[in-house]
């Protein structure tokens, strides 16, 4: 439940700050010894540096990486940009082809579009019907001049899981760098970059794990280490890849969140998956409805549902104060722009407008699921009761 009493089902957008994380961050902010610049050589600086080192180790441990392979950033968007732009700009000019997909996050799409404007070719792979990417499609798109494959492990709208281990094997065999956008998968599904050494770069952030906003990480493989061109110039922090004084309390929060999530990784995904399926069953009285994506292979916490005859913006407002969720359309700037991800899955604009992303997390309970489903079913029925004749059949 969220602070205003509504059921919070938007964990894929951001997870509530874990109480243990908040406590660790407050302790750090209250400790004068931790206020120094972690790059300073004096005693307070060394104290701050020790906190950063511990956080770096905890963040690395979540994905099976050594601390030295972690570059701290301001969030997943920056990590993604550093990985994609940095890797391709550092590649020889005659080897700058990129393989990505049509269902990536805007951060990836934007970086790839930037590279296209700089002269790189980008192959945009079509997804499976659930939103995942087939490794065979990646194999078919690789070219002698391919510098980078960049794919998300878990689709942020449907939860579809891509077999990153298979893609990593492929990239290792072909000598191509693989960047994984793990913003939705880190801490939700097992990741071990030590085992999947075909993963050269991996991006994730704190706030989807119960950590603070404004901090993220880029894993950079140690051996062989990919060449990266930094996006900014400055003081040479983070192995010269990301200059700027480190925000100790943010990193402490990130580290604490990773440690907490790692401790529950053996049990939480199965529990959340069961809750997701319970939610899907509890929504059936709102039929006709459909699922965007599939139950498997998928991350545990995302359920994307379309309700025939329903307009997503109205559904969200009807649920305001009762359920916090995300629409299938980006309802900003007064115009609902249908999701390009759901479009890539073949959904019509009307079906996309009728869709709702419900995402669950660590704090979601059975009561939350039942309450949310009851509110959603009631809201859908209310909106349908006002539909013009024939609209229910046409808007699906």
């Amino acid at each position: 439940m969220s602070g205003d009493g509504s059921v919070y089902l938007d964990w894929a957008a951001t997870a509530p700050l874990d109480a243990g994380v908040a406590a660790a961050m407050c302790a750090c902010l209250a400790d004068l010894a931790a206020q120094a610049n972690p790059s300073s050589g004096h005693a307070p600086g060394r104290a701050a540096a020790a906190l950063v080192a511990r956080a770096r180790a905890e963040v690395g441990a979540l994905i099976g990486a050594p601390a030295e392979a972690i570059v701290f950033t301001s969030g997943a968007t920056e990590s993604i940009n550093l990985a994609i732009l940095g890797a391709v700009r550092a590649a020889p000019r005659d080897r700058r082809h990129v393989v990505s997909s049509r269902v990536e996050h805007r951060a990836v799409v934007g970086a790839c579009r930037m590279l296209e404007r700089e002269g790189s070719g980008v192959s945009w792979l079509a997804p499976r019907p659930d939103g995942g990417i087939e490794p065979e499609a990646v194999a078919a798109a690789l070219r002698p001049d391919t510098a980078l494959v960049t794919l998300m492990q878990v689709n942020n709208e449907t939860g579809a899981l891509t077999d990153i281990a298979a893609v990593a094997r492929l990239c290792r065999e072909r000598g191509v760098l693989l960047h994984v956008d793990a913003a939705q998968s880190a801490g939700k599904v097992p990741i071990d970059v030590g085992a999947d050494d075909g993963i050269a770069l991996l991006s994730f952030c704190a706030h989807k794990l119960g950590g603070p906003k404004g901090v993220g990480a880029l894993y950079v493989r140690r051996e062989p280490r990919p060449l990266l061109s930094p996006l900014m110039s400055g003081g040479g922090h983070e192995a010269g890849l990301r200059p700027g004084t480190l925000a100790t309390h943010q990193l402490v929060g990130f580290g604490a969140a990773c440690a907490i999530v790692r401790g529950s990784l053996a049990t939480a995904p199965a529990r959340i998956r069961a809750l997701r399926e319970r939610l899907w069953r509890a929504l059936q009285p709102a039929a006709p409805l459909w699922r965007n994506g599939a139950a498997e292979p998928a991350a545990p916490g995302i359920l994307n549902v379309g309700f025939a005859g329903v307009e997503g913006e109205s559904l969200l407002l009807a649920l305001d104060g009762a359920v916090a969720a995300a629409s299938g359309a980006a309802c900003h700037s007064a115009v609902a722009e249908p999701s390009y991800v759901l479009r890539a899955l073949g959904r019509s604009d009307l079906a996309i407008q009728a869709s709702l992303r419900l995402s669950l997390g660590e704090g979601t309970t059975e009561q939350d699921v039942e309450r949310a489903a009851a509110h959603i079913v009631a809201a859908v029925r209310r909106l349908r009761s006002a539909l013009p004749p024939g609209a229910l059949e046409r808007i699906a």
Partner: protein
Amino acid sequence: MSGEPVRYSPRVRELFAALPRAGSLAAGAGTAVHGESAALDRGAWVRFEARIEGGRIADCAFRAWGCPHTLAAAAWLAGRMQSAPVTATKAAEVRELAHEIDAPAGKLGKLLAVVDAQEALLAAARAVQ
């Protein structure tokens, strides 16, 4: 699933929460007419229904698919047409409608569908005079 969310005026919230006159006409005397505009490309589908009796709109209801602004505008217009004389009633201007519910400029296209449905209703009402 990102960007600045749409802001709703208190008037839109109030009308959307209550949806007055949504659904079917109550049984009664007079001639039933309707007017409809299905602008799916603009994300709005509106239908007004009315009973015409003695040269007046004796009862008016609406049905709609669309965003909260669309539903709120249809609800407000249905209320305004209640008891109105058919011949003297003109369709609303889109900007007047937007002003009434404090809708942003980006919603004018959807509100046009509401006005089109009202015009169709009034034309049908005049035809049975």
